[in-house]
């Protein structure tokens, strides 16, 4: 599995399609924290909300990095769709976690309000949860579940856009609500459970659909 993860990660990095979501992420992150972003946890809410669609976008990039034919070869070499889709999910989660870490560290350096270690780890956890939810949404609608990139983009965009107005009815809303009220909450943990379940479900659905 490690060698498969290394191969898929190397392929994503070589393909450079990851640059678009990464640069958008860095650019908006820079704007969010260009001035006083507020109290520590409150300041994290903007970047956590941003990470959700960016992680979904990055997951689609990871899932579709290999073209259809090369993915077939990889599936045969690795011994089945489940292994390849699990490895792709791990790569997407690794990319998402790296971005979550960056988003958690950024305001610690730039925000004038001092951060405690506890606030930092709550922020890191919240970002990781939002990233997991994004990865789950991205993988759920990417190849091999949807064969067409157009359908994938429309479905992911639709779900992401619908998530925000639903507010606290969604796991993302639980996280953003907790951060927005400057408090940590068990609901963040539950949202993480939903995120892990979503990523796992995307792998299972993909393996069945393939």
């Amino acid at each position, binding site marked *: 599995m490690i060698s498969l993860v290394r191969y898929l990660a190397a392929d994503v990095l070589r393909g450079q399609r990851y640059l678009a979501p990464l640069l958008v992420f860095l650019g908006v992150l820079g704007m969010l924290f260009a001035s006083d972003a507020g109290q520590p946890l409150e300041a994290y809410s903007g970047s956590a909300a941003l990470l959700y669609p960016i992680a979904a976008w990055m997951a689609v990039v990871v899932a579709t990095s290999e073209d259809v034919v*090369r993915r077939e*070869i990889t599936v045969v070499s690795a011994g089945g769709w489940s292994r390849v889709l699990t490895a792709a999910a791990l790569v997407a989660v690794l990319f998402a976690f790296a971005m979550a870490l960056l988003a958690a560290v950024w305001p610690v350096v730039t925000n004038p309000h001092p951060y405690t270690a506890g606030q930092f780890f709550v922020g890191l956890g919240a970002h990781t949860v939002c990233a997991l939810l994004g990865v789950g949404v991205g993988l759920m609608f990417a190849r091999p579940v949807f064969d067409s990139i157009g359908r994938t983009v429309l479905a992911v965009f639709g779900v992401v856009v619908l998530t925000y107005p639903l507010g606290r009815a969604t796991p993302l809303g639980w996280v953003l609500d907790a951060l927005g009220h400057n408090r940590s909450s068990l609901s963040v943990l539950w949202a993480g459970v939903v995120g892990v379940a979503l990523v796992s479900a995307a792998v299972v659905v993909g393996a069945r659909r393939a």
Partner: protein
Amino acid sequence: MLRDLTLEVSGLVVLTGANGTGKSTLLKIAAGVLKPSTGRVVRPASVGYVPERFPSDVKMSASSYLAHMGRVRGAAANDVLERLGFVGSLTAPMSELSKGNAQKVALAQAFLAADVLVLDEPWTGLDPAAATELVSLLEDRTALVSDHEGHLASATRVDLAGGHVTIELSRVVGLDALEALEGVRSVLSRGSSARVVVAPDRSDQVLAEALRLGCSVRSVR
């Protein structure tokens, strides 16, 4: 759709048949890319697969790709590239390779497999010397190969269509009913059109059923 097919691969087995008779589909099922709608496939742990067309826009270099594939399989590097006469840069992106050299890379990754090779038109793009060398590489291997050009004269041959009648249909309705008819060997549907390959002795019945269902018959050959 392929029906009533039992195939045991031992030594070299060559699949033949006209376009659309399901050779590539069968090879994908054999390799584990596709699942059969019914029936089962028993395959060994290590299968090497070469698709009909290796992609031409791969940014990874050949050496990096083969090293990764070797690690994924837990297999040592082989000398297939050298034997096939690969010329070009192993460190440049594969998108810069010629079609023939890219095919050699595809073959080299497949030969990392220890047990069975599944090769779909593996001679595509190879020069004559490489084509001959590929024949010798396949000696003593267990492989399922589609081969239009007769490179493997001594191999066991399986003709997917055999003697057959091809019926081209438009305004297709009741495709499921057609697929279920006795004598239907394969059905390839594209939108509202379909190509149905039928055993010669059942073509009249299939044709009659297609017309009864309301399909338009474009050609029978």
